[in-house]
């Protein structure tokens, strides 16, 4: 897909994110806005998904298609919007986010049967392990499709992440591409102050991963180029780690670059300001 087309989708996804979070006055807009380019690029351009007559079809078993897992489940708004815009479920359902009887729970889950979701996430540090299991299942089935997983940089403070980091190179899981959203922010402040992860690239390299950077994680062309490069590195017996440098809250000026919008909803006035900055390209839900 043309970069311009992907950018248009990203703009609509950002509108969805702030509107969803505003409507229920809860949720996590900061990380969602920061990862918009990545999820749009994956689902609308890079991933090999099951489609029937150009319509996306969801099968839990994920056979013969690429899979995506969101480990930092709190950025559910961006994932829900991208899944809905891709056609996994009606866009109108975004209005139910975090409300009673909704399939769009605060954190993603299979429990209410939302198409596109294959595991619950929210309690941090578990997604990479799950993605590796899915990749091993594909290997047993001689299915060469890729498994993607996105983690947060604050999430790297969880111990299970490093169990997974050891496991994947040992088992030569080459069809795995992991991303870390390197936005440098977490709930209590800048990551460097809360708990310094130091050089994650060097760490993963030492663990045996193929490591690469996408320096402009909110520039669609850079993200598409970066994922394409990562796909080229995949399938050679080494898991691939992509450090994606993003801005928390990217696209809404007053939310950018601060941890304050990690988990805070905008009020009516702030919503209006945000929507003024984001073009409606596909029609609001």
């Amino acid at each position: 897909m043309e970069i311009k087309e992907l950018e248009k989708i990203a703009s609509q996804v950002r509108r969805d994110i702030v509107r969803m979070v505003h409507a229920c006055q809860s949720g996590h807009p900061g990380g969602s806005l920061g990862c918009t380019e990545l999820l749009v690029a994956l689902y609308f351009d890079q991933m090999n998904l099951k489609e029937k007559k150009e319509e996306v079809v969801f099968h839990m078993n994920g056979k013969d298609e690429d899979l995506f897992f969101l480990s930092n489940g709190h950025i559910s708004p961006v994932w829900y919007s991208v899944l809905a815009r891709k056609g996994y479920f009606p866009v109108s359902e975004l209005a139910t986010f975090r409300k009673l009887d909704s399939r769009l729970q605060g954190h993603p889950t299979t429990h209410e049967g939302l198409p596109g979701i294959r595991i619950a996430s929210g309690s941090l540090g578990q997604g990479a392990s799950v993605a590796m299991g899915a990749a091993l299942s594909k290997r047993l089935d001689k299915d060469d499709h890729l498994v993607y997983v996105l983690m947060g940089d604050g999430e790297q403070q969880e111990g299970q992440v490093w169990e997974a980091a050891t496991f994947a190179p040992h088992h030569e899981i080459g069809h795995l591409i992991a991303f870390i959203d390197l936005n440098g922010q977490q709930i209590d402040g800048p990551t460097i102050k809360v708990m310094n992860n130091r050089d994650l690239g060097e760490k993963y390299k030492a663990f045996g991963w193929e490591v690469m950077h996408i320096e402009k994680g909110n520039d669609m062309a850079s993200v598409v180029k970066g994922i394409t490069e990562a796909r080229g590195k995949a399938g050679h017996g080494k898991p691939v780690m992509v450090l994606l440098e993003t801005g928390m809250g990217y696209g809404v000026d007053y939310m950018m670059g601060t941890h304050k919008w990690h988990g805070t909803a905008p009020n009516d006035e702030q919503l209006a300001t945000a929507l003024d900055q984001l073009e409606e390209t596909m029609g609001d839900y």
Partner: protein
Amino acid sequence: MKLTVNYLTPETDILMKKYTYTEKKDTRSGFGAGMHELGKQNPNVVALCADLVGSLKLDPFIKENPERFIQCGISEANMMGVSAGLTIGGKIPYATTFANFATGRVYDQIRQSVAYSNKNVKICASHAGLTLGEDGATHQILEDLGMMKMLPGMTVINPCDYNQTKAATIAIADHEGPVYLRFGRPVVPIFTDPDQKFEIGKAWMVSEGKDVSIFATGHLVWEAIQAGEMLEKEGIDAEIVNIHTIKPLDEAAIMKSVKKTGCAVSAEEHNRLGGLGDSIAQVLVKNQLVPQEYVAVNDSFGESGTPTQLMEKYGLTAKDIVAAAKRAIERKG
């Protein structure tokens, strides 16, 4: 000990009350034998282990199915996540380690990635309870049944001997959904049918009686059988029921039994808080109150010792079941 073999199955005449055995084995070996069998039967079964292959008796499975074994190293949290991921493509992962590391250490991973996500993971836990012995309390988990039964959708199974553990190991592959299968290290008599059909959630009437119902789980079923014989000598006719499935609990079988006997004893190698006893108490409270006595560990940690010493010190033997049965009968008034 008499050496006449007298296997009983649920179909056999339950009035034949004499249970004897010719051989003793650990239940974990029953698990290993079940896995060996499953390896041949079901191509979707995958075994995972966290650096305890020998203890879990997985060698025969691994030898015949090396591509379907995943060594996880000493990383149980990751093992649970990998297991959850494996189910997505239709694999049936058996995640194996000691009960302590299979539950308490990884409760959140099981809760989110397995139970809440309703993944078809079989959590197979050896060395449960006090009777792993000399390693002491760090390894003797007595809270696992409670933790696992509280998870919505989790099936919890604690078979009584080698043959039943083997049968349960095979049976859970055909059950869609997460399962916690608990077994152990001590060598205990083999007294159930080697060809038994294991039915999840269906209590097994070991022997009928009219004076007291003894509901036992795991290798305490054998202690209960011994207790039944001791009670018989004193003119007390005990009914013994093997509750191999803690969840879903066979409430109908429990109520049918206590309606006849009027009192109950629960026997388990677990903390008295949160185990089988509490599950039975809940059934009684809901339906019909009768006196119930617990044979369980009295809210304490264990310690180093031989399995026999620990069973005695912590009150889990046939003698303790006899005493509990008498107390329960006494309370009937």
